[in-house]
């Protein structure tokens, strides 16, 4: 009897994201889950006293100072930018999916481990702008969520980007009122991040973005509880009609 298995919806989503961004010139990068404080915070222009570094937000490794579970995928961006500096290049595009960790109590919308996707595109100064960021993310959400999807930038603040924006996506969730949903953070790489990687921020600039994957899937498929994703339950994996 034919017995096809199933892929986890996160795998299905990452494939689609890698494909969409691949067609826009983005390579896939990966990096360690056990990360150093340097790549997770210092290299990303996050001040030493920033609350994100606290025990309430970040999982730290016992008896190993400066070792932590990565809280975002942006540390891999820093590592990739270092590679670009070593190669002496100025252009690079990466899409970076992976598991991240936050020390927060779990409930229907919060998990201590979840997936994020970061991405960036850098080029010689002036080549890559906020307008390219807006186009790239619009392309992505239109392909991923449907042609009616649109985005808006809401000014915000993150250490690793300047200017920084929250990316709201206009989406019509299954059986719900259409609305703006906060989907990602984005902006132009902060000059300190570029410099930290060994690149000249006057010569290399670009955009970066990052967002949670489970939330995107919850919206897209009407999944009620984030804790369903990583509890090993096959009923979840089989809970989707496969078209």
């Amino acid at each position, binding site marked *: 009897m034919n017995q096809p298995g199933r892929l986890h919806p996160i795998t299905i989503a990452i494939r689609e994201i890698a494909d969409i961004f691949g067609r826009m010139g983005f390579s896939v990068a990966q990096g360690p889950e056990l990360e150093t404080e340097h790549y997770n915070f210092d290299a990303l222009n996050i001040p030493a006293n920033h609350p994100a570094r606290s025990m309430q937000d970040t999982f730290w490794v016992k008896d190993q100072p400066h070792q932590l579970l990565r809280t975002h995928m942006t540390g891999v961006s820093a590592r990739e930018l270092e590679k670009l500096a070593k190669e002496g290049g100025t252009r690079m595009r990466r899409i970076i999916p992976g598991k991240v960790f936050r020390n927060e109590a779990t409930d229907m919308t919060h998990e201590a481990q979840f997936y994020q996707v970061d991405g960036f595109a850098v080029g010689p100064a002036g080549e890559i702008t906020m*307008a*390219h960021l*807006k186009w790239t993310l619009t392309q992505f959400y239109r392909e991923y969520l449907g042609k009616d999807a649109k985005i808006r930038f809401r000014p915000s603040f993150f250490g690793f980007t300047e200017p920084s924006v929250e990316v709201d996506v206009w989406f019509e969730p299954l059986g719900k009122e259409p609305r703006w949903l906060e989907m990602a953070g984005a902006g*132009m790489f902060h000059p300190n991040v570029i410099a930290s990687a060994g690149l000249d921020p006057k010569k290399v600039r670009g955009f970066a973005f990052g967002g949670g994957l489970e939330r995107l899937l919850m919206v897209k498929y009407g999944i009620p509880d984030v804790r369903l994703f990583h509890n090993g339950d096959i*009923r*979840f994996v*089989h809970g989707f009609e496969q078209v």
Partner: protein
Amino acid sequence: MKITHAKLQEYFTQPLPGTDAIAEAFTFHAFEIESVEGELLDIKVLPNRAADCNSAAGIALELSAILDVPLAHEPELSYPGPAVEITLEALNGILGTEFSAAEVEEVFRRLRFQVEQKDGAYHVFAPAPRNDMAFIEDVAEEVGRILGYERVPLTPLPAFDGPVDQNRFRGVERMKDQLVEQGFTEVSTQSFAKKGDIYLANPLDKTMPALRTTLEDNLKDALTHAKQYAPRVLAPGQKLKLFEVGTVFPKEGEFVELRMTETVPAWGENFPTFDNLSIAKLEDYGKDYTPIRYELGAYRPFSVYPFITRDIALWVPSETESSAIENIIREKAGELLVRLDQFDRFEKEGRTSYAFRLVFESAERTLTDEEIQGVMAGVSEALVKAGFEVR
């Protein structure tokens, strides 16, 4: 910081818009509104503006810039510098905009920046105690924030002329596709474990203080649980096979492990039930491979209440289509039927025998045997009425 509408109004002569409109204005200008209670605003000042916006006077000055409404008493401001030197071209080169000099200078005026023009560049001084103006990107952000990012156009990303490398990623996905083809279902489990080589200084769950060194234990647990639910998701006769790809943390260093609940026939008996994908040579394997894409429909939540299975076998005339039988079963079984699988078929003396498994479940309650007995009696009756012989 918390501030009332009335307190803000004290700083202005002309009437301010309502509290909600003010909240909206802050939200779209890099402040977060924690709450609005009547006339009381709770404004979260982000770290870059902590120096100048943690007072009522600071917030009022900012609101004056955002709304472009004059203050009743313009404060004496000082400009200690250093200045940020930026050209209009560089500013538009960050934002991807075509803002005019007049528009940009208008923003500087609203923000009370002191500006000198030298050799075609602006030398921008922010008023003390603002300390967030150090790079040209900071100035570009202020202009984008005040003029509005809706004015940033959609500009297609230039074509990338370098190589696009997704080979390694695709190599892993190719292995997953083969596993799915072999009947394996992918699961995802928690990275935290009871024991391991690496412990967390601040575990969330004190009983799970370590990082997993293998996927084996989680996958075993997942399989044990899956067995209880197998009839709910698989057809009779289908074997439950699971796999996971995830990072593990032995003392030698983390790596990405692939783990299966049994060997994969297509990979040979000697291929073990696990693999270290971090050292596997997957680049060539993934180079020319396009991972299979799936379209998923809406998620259908499973019930928290147990399901009940019943089998039914019947003789039908050999020309009968199984879909005709399934239609009768579905119609009679009603909405409690969540799964129907044909699991046997053979012919004998001009007749065909079919066997089906029915799975019943309610989203609201635990079903009773008596209830399902009644449903099955109705199904049998309808099948007999259609001229079939229920065995």
